């Protein structure tokens, strides 16, 4: 039995301890907001927070995250109004939307650690997240805006 704390809820799952967290979330817990893109930690579509850090869930066996705080896109904010989510809406960032959960999870982890990221900080933090539709310039602009929104709240 694997015990996971997902978005504040304890879950006990009867699964292979080697199962990547992504498939446990999607197939077992039925939280499909985290996406599959590569299965090798190359594209970031599966990004979740483990104790606040951005982690690629597709290469993270569930056995390694027991007892840790797992946050998925569904649990990022109660009302969908995290500063990153607000900025994403304001700037109409998504195109197809598939990679955006991962982008938002990486971006929110960044601004939690860096309240005023430069373009370079953003590029470094977000280079692990691929967007095939090509929303990168808007992602950069939205992270600047989200950081500003977050600073104003504080």
């Amino acid at each position, binding site marked *: 039995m694997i015990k996971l704390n997902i978005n504040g809820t304890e879950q006990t799952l009867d699964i292979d301890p080697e199962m990547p967290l992504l498939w446990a979330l999607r197939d077992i817990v039925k939280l*499909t907001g985290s996406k599959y893109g590569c299965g090798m930690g190359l594209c970031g579509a599966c990004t979740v927070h483990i104790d606040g850090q951005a982690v690629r869930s597709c290469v993270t066996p569930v056995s390694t995250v027991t007892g840790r705080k797992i946050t998925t896109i569904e649990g990022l904010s109660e009302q969908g109004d995290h500063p990153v989510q607000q900025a994403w809406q304001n700037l109409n960032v998504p195109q197809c939307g*598939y990679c955006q959960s991962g982008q938002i999870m990486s971006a929110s982890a960044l601004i939690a650690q860096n309240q005023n990221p430069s373009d370079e900080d953003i590029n470094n933090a977000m280079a692990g997240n691929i967007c095939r539709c*090509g*929303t990168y310039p808007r992602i950069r602009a939205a992270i600047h805006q989200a950081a500003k929104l977050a600073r104003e709240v504080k």
Partner: protein
Amino acid sequence: MDTLNKMDTQNKNIQNVSRRHFIKGLGIAGGSMVIGVQFSPLLAADTRSTADIFSPDVFVSIDKDGQVTIICHRSEMGQGIRSTLPLLVADELEADWKRVTVTQALGDPKYGSQNTDGSRSVRKNYQKLKEAGAIARTMLQQAAAKVWQVSADKVEIYNHNALLKGSKQTLDFSKLVEIAATLPIPDRTKLKLKTEKEQRYVGKENIKILDGEKIITGNTVFGFDVQLEGMKIAVIARPPVVFGKVKSFDDSETLKVPGVVKVIQLPDLNPPAAFNMLGGIAVIADNTWAAIKGREKLKIDWEHGQNASYDSVQHETVFKESVKNPSTVVRNRGDFKQAKAAAAKVITADYYVGGLTHAPMEPPAATAVVTDDGVEVWACTQTPQASVGSVMRTLNIAKEKADTVKVHVTLLGGGFGRKSKPDFVAEAAYLANQTQMPIKVLWTREDEVKHGYYHSPSYQVLTGTLDQQNNVTGWHHCMVNHPIGATFNPAAKTAGSADLGQADIMWDVPNMLIDLGDTDTYTRIGWVRSVTNINNAFAACSFADELAHAKAQDPKDFLLDFIGKDQHINYEKDNYQYGNYGEPLKTYPADTARLKNVIQLVAKKAGWGKKLPKGHGIGIAAHRSFCTYVATIVEVSFENGKVKLESVYNAVDCGKVLNPDRVRSQMEGAAIFATTLAYYGDITCKEGQVEQSNFHDYQMARINEIPEIHTYIVKSDLLPTGIGEPGVPPFAPALCNAIFNATGKRYRRLPLKQYNIV
């Protein structure tokens, strides 16, 4: 009309009965069968009104509460079509957007073509959808006139209300539905359509994307996300070589993996590939992880077949021979041979562009349920009607039973042409039928990269001739690639796509020869975003830059001269029947003035001619595709021998713009899609097998490589054209022209990674 009403009511009953059977057949209570997927309401999709619903057109219905339902019949894959098309209908209807529900259509010919590719959703549906809204508005106006006992011209429809002119009386749509439903449907040709001034949504800024809120909270349903009760997951080990077969296999280790339920062999594929299943061995499991692990443990002995002889690198020598003896002349103006013989200067250059795959972030995925009554599918498909056809062929369903196959379209996590080939839908239907279980077929990234419908590598030779005065007198462009046609007819050896950026070139040159070479094909070839415009425009717009330098003329000025006087190009004069993306040249001419205009606009905005910092370079390219005119300027610099994009400027003329924000986002995305193909795109085959597998060896452009992208839209009242693809073709040549400007080196082969400069 009464008779029609009756007939449709009957049909609806039949459909409803059969849906109940679907659910009963599964032994599952109706409401709980689907988690996370909504059935498309059949009522809303019906063509005629009932007592409760006013539905004067297949695309529009209004219920008694005044809630408007608009059908989106095109697939959403990031282009924003679920926002743009329903907004057009709502605007024409004078609906309050807050009281509009957008419902995704099932695959059904009653909507017309639903094949969402070719950059034509707006182009092909603009008039039809404007009329759909206007029909409903006109009937609501007539209904209000009936209530107030005045003539219809005394009634104005505005924002979900009828207003009695000269009074303060209003009637909400909800109050008019019942009466409107009894009125005859007005003649389409006599509708009064709204003028641009009267439009309240179309063409406006700040249109929020329809699914934005769901996307940012992770609540959308893509093909990968479909969940049915009792559903199993399938992953498939497909033949490494197209038309390869399973000689034998051992699944004993696979069946030991906890969660693996079944292993099923798929039928072998024989030519043509078309949209059929590739064959192989499917592993069916309770969850994706078990299915993937189970597949790893399969031991399969493959018979690779004839295509195993294919080596894409070596095949370049075949291409080179082929262009020496072109088989097919597509366009012929003047006498190029004569021009060449008489020329003072002849310039020739060879261009090569590597193979490409679509790599949508969401690989293909489809879920199917089969019962005695029919088949129901949920898929991220660009083409639900072809998906219906694919299911019917796979399961031998008779033509007259087409209505027993239902294809629901989920959101698409990118498409780029891959998801218009429903081989993955056929797999889901086949396995659901074999297992009698709901089956979701998922393609892993490796599957997507190794078993695609590729953009073919291409070899091109361009020749330009100049006279004593340095005037360009001749243009010859010969191209060879593996034709898309071979996917459907193995005998096809010649590209059928010269219309896409090769033969339709808009240069004003007295002698022009456009021809094609022949070759055999060994993989599945398909269309990737902008298709052969990718390689044709790369070669043509790079070579135009070469001619500018040969003349020692500014490349922008050269382009304007080379395009020449204002005219609508008469291709027939050159013995060339131009397809023009399925549009008549009369209404969608190849207009040189519009091409020159985007060049001038982008040059002005980018500050063409400005003094650049040391080591920087700037390049320009302009291209018409999908009836849209795009000019692109790229500025680059070099750091430690590596190219760095400094900025990208696009000017686009796509006629009337419905949703400017989504036009800009498509242009931004196109530049980035093109950065990927120019830098990294290279699918290669050895022994008939694709050598790449995932994002480590089939790389994508990333955020740190992408600068600001500026897009300028030409204001126009002309017919809307296309926007999904036209931004792609001019980028790579503008980039390479900029690199030449910076370094003096001309790169004629893509991807650029082979030169170690990216």
